């Protein structure tokens, strides 16, 4: 028994003293740009948002973000690794070093910016809405949805949730971990509407024209989307900012944006 205790204590001690929390210090000392090049791999945190990032028929990741991240890795001369992460935990995962950068359609907001650094926007997105024909019959403006008896489903922790709460403070909200669950609620007619970033609501309404419709034609917010990275790493921030500048100028971002958000060519890749 003595030996058992000894083994136990030694294990704990070794684990404790040798490793306890050097990560925090390590994470900030070295710029991730350097680390990425040393290891030859860029680790990108993302989450499924149609058509920003999703799995195609063969189980491969495709989408706007995926194209952006792949090009970024290619320009850095390293391999890419995607780390699919639950959206509600994506910022804690970045802070604790599960990956190097979030390229996941993340809207720049003051609350998030207090915890992470953002690059300049590489894309703008807006919130739009898709509603149930029977439940939201005759609704045509934000004020129609801003009522106590209206229920809206959104994906938890997204800027869609924030926008919905801001524009429709009186409505009730159902929060889900995934967008598909929110849309399922809508299809079942248990909520009046789903708020999500464009162009997904419009696409979804097109898919089920006899059940759903788009009550508000124009997007009701305009949000800058940036890469998110850990605080204190100004080298990386500078590098990513300039990468975005260059790819704005070269037209790469615009071209990809058109493909994913304005055409529906990619749909055959998914279904």
């Amino acid at each position, binding site marked *: *028994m003595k030996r*058992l*205790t000894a083994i*136990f204590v030694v294990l704990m001690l070794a*684990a404790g003293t040798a*490793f*306890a*929390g*050097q*990560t925090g210090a*390590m994470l900030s000392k070295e710029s991730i740009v350097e680390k990425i090049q040393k*290891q*030859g*791999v860029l*680790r990108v945190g993302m989450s*499924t948002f*149609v058509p920003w990032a*999703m*799995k*195609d*028929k*063969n*189980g491969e990741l495709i989408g706007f973000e995926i194209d952006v991240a792949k090009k970024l890795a290619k320009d850095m001369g390293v391999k890419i*690794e*995607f*780390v*699919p*992460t*639950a959206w509600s*935990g994506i910022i*804690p*995962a970045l802070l*604790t*070093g*599960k990956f190097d950068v979030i390229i996941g359609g993340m809207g720049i907001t003051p609350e998030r910016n207090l915890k992470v650094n953002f690059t300049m926007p590489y894309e703008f997105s807006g919130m739009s809405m898709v509603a149930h024909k029977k439940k939201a019959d005759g609704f045509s403006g934000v004020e129609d949805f801003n009522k106590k008896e209206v229920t809206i489903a959104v994906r938890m922790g997204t800027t869609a949730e924030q926008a919905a709460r801001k524009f429709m403070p009186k409505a009730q909200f159902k929060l889900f*971990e*995934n*967008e*598909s*669950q929110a*849309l*399922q609620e809508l299809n*079942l007619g248990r909520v009046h509407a789903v708020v999500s970033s464009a162009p997904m609501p419009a696409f979804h309404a097109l*898919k089920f024209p006899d*059940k759903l419709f788009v009550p508000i034609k124009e997007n009701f917010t305009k949000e800058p989307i940036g890469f998110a990275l850990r605080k204190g790493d100004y080298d990386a921030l500078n590098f990513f900012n300039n990468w975005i500048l260059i790819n704005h100028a070269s037209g790469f971002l615009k071209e990809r944006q058109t493909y994913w958000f304005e055409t529906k060519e990619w749909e055959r890749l*998914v*279904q």
Partner: protein
Amino acid sequence: MVALALVAAAISFFLSRMGSVLAYEWDWSAIPRYFMFRDGETGRLVPNILLKGFFTTIKLSIWATVLAFVLGTLSGIMGARGDGFQRFVSRTYVETVRNVPSLVLLIIFYYFVSSQFLDILGLDEWLRRQSPGVREFTGFILADPGSINAFASAVAALALYEGAYISEIVRGGILGLPRGQWEAAYSIGLSGPKTFRLVILPQAFRQVAFPLAGQFISTIKDSAIVSVISIQELTFQGMELMSATFLTFEVWITVTLLYFALTFPLSRAISLLEKRSAPRE
């Protein structure tokens, strides 16, 4: 007969309501593709996300059970035979784990503990430096370099969780043995530790073999919750698939059946073996 008629009536009522209320367009034809598909270029069958997720679930459960077994046995022995201090350590561990939801435990473990300890080990960096053969092998039995840290912390968290239950099973097994065993061993001149190793422990393990096997099934099911920390196992892949295709019902039903296919034969086999070995006692 009445019961049977009632059940039939309930099922048919349910199905008819399902048709009218949901107005759901079933599309089962899309599902097989997500198990396996034929690669257009090479013409070979390639496993797709559902099958990959299925294997990840199996790998995860096996590793977690192995680790949990070591941890649980250690803690169980300490709880049953240790001095006051060892019993205290064992109880602290078991009671903490058993009284906190696995979801909460997992989240704390993933963000707090694993980023403190696991990341520093640099498993992923070490793996990336290995030859492709080694990488493929570890990818097969563990996970790819990109997800090895998450995989390791999921295994560790699951093992920590299941270990507490195994600890209780082992402790019960040791304490459940009649005192006469000790006395008999003592009378033939065996020392305390020797008695424990040669007489008590083998018997205790035989006693607890079936509950332990049952715990393995629990691990398979509990592994579903690691989807929240983004391990790409069956449940996670199912959710991803739903997000991309919106085939909600088809995907959920398929995933349920896959879990069932994994655990049901196992639990049947265990209970059959248990029955068969019972009369010999």
